[in-house]
């Protein structure tokens, strides 16, 4: 019964937004175009250095490798292998993300030779003690949010669309996100995250954009600043490779167990 009411109200909301709200319509169109330009990359792999900086300026480094597979009409698959800190070296994280139903996630713990299925409800929790939550690192899918176009702005002399995004996921750590999207290239430049009390929590800025395969933009540096804690996390992506021939078989339980 509850489900029906939710579904019904959901339909009404979506219907209402589409029919009556031009700002919602425009916001959705911008994000759809961004998504269209970023589809067809098939598969990629990269190494990631995370630099955690607390409010006292102390630095901690994490190193990981990430393999990703684009899945049409659903969330992507990814396999993350930890290299540093050294006590978790060889730990691997397999995720099948989905647009509307909960993601499927497994963690392989090499010291125990054990694969553990984990709940995907903790999307708002910190990833490896960083300022990035699982939610922030998940693959971007248009259907995960409702949108509202707020207007135009400029960053470094470049024209931006400003779009407000409302997560549909009920366990999201945010009430809303405000995104600055480059008008020329349709790529994210900056996101402000507002917590569950609607206070500004974090700001993510995308830097050092590089184009791959002639059309896919990837930010090689991302900075997440936590305004409430005074700490930040920097992501440095290296050795990006596309079309390395990854398939579903590279995101299986067997692969998770032998990931190195």
């Amino acid at each position, binding site marked *: 019964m509850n489900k029906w009411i939710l579904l019904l109200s959901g339909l009404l909301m979506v219907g209402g937004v589409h029919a009556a709200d031009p700002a919602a319509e425009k916001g959705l169109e911008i994000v759809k175009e961004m998504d269209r330009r970023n589809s067809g990359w098939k598969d990629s792999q990269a190494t990631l250095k995370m630099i955690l900086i607390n409010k006292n300026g102390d630095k901690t480094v994490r190193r990981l490798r990430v393999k990703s597979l684009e899945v049409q009409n659903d969330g992507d698959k990814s396999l993350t292998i930890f290299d540093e*800190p*050294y006590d978790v*070296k060889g730990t691997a994280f397999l995720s099948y993300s989905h647009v509307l139903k909960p993601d499927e996630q497994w963690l392989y713990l090499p010291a*125990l030779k*054990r694969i553990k299925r984990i*709940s995907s409800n*903790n999307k708002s929790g910190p990833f490896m*003690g960083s300022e990035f939550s699982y939610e922030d690192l998940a693959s971007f899918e248009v259907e995960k949010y409702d949108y509202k176009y707020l207007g135009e702005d400029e960053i470094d002399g470049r024209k931006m669309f400003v779009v407000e995004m409302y997560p549909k996921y009920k366990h999201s750590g945010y009430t809303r996100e405000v995104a600055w999207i480059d008008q020329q290239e349709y790529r994210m430049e900056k996101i402000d995250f507002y917590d569950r009390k609607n206070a500004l929590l974090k700001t993510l800025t995308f830097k050092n954009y590089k184009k791959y395969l002639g059309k896919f933009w990837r930010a090689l540096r991302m900075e997440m600043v936590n305004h409430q804690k005074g700490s930040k996390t920097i992501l440095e992506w290296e050795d990006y490779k596309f079309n390395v021939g990854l398939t579903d078989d590279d995101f299986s339980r*067997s692969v998770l167990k032998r990931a*190195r």
Partner: protein
Amino acid sequence: MKKMWVMLSAGVMVASLFASSVAIDYRGYVGASWRQYDGQGAQGQDASDFSLVAEPELAFDWNEGSDRWVSSFFLRADSMDDERTHFDVRESYWLHIGDGWELRVGADIVFWGVTESQHLVDIINQTDGVEGADGEDKLGQPMVAWSTEQDWGLLSLYWLPYFRERNFPGIDGRLRPFVPVADDAVYESSAEEWHQDFAARWFKTIGDADIAVSLFRGTDRFPDFVIDAGPQIGIRLVPYYRQMTQLGFEGQYMSGDTAWKMEAVWRDRADETYFASVLGLEHTLYGIFGSDKDLGILLEYHYDERRDKRLNPFDNDTFIGARLAFNDEDSSEILGGFIIDNDNQGWMFFAETSRRLTSHWKISIEARLFADYPQSDIVAQYQQDDHIEVELRYYY
């Protein structure tokens, strides 16, 4: 046997060096641990135990990753117990990865199971009986293992050509039976440790559920004990390894923040046929009190049809535990709980906490208490072995 694996692994390593484009990968740790018991042991054993430990691992990939050699070794030098000073080849295998299948030849460790407080289904490897009191450390098992992952699931087949005897603490060691365990084991099978064991497991994810069914036919990893007494030898326990067929089931169902877990075994031996099971759940409260900390509540119930606490102390017991993950940059974590015997007054308590000091160094502290077990319960032998252990490890 050990020598053979070492030579074999050395041979493949040398051969690999000559092959083109070999990717070498190493990791491991060295550590020092100090265990303090609450007074002397039941037979006057020491109260303090200091040990050094190392677990190096080396791996080679060749043929663009479709072939791999992995070797990992375990070493402990212990101040108290000569039996606890030991070396083991945890892994030394060649892995070949085919199209949707893989083959492993050599020694490896295989874990089966979903529950936390007891591992009933886990049968491939012998327990390293001188390591932790929780029995989670395993000895490397020689095997030929083939597995394939298809739409219908992940199927693994094992041929286990050689049996490893369980190791036990020596006369000076703690956490041991009142009477020392003899080195010379007795077997039901005339092939003794060369009895050829076989196992198979089928695993599948169906929506929010992960399930597995397994079958094992071979030497029971858990021995019976025969009392052997004589004027020269005194009293000692001789391990007796029986033949066993085990049918196992593992299931886990994710329902939001709760994971429902079940393990069940049906075991058939010449002397008895019985059923045992663990049922439980793990419920996680994310971001408690508006912080980044997650609190997990663990609840498990143990059942063993034999209802004989000399054979399995967990025959009608309840485990209640909690796991607090700080989700901080040091990955600080606390795990603790009680296992309570529902029939007698016995209970045991454990708590483990760890945190990273730097990206190489990690410290962990563990405490174990055993209380109020009657003499008819096998756990009573640990009653005077309450202890706290501090371990510092350098990972690389």
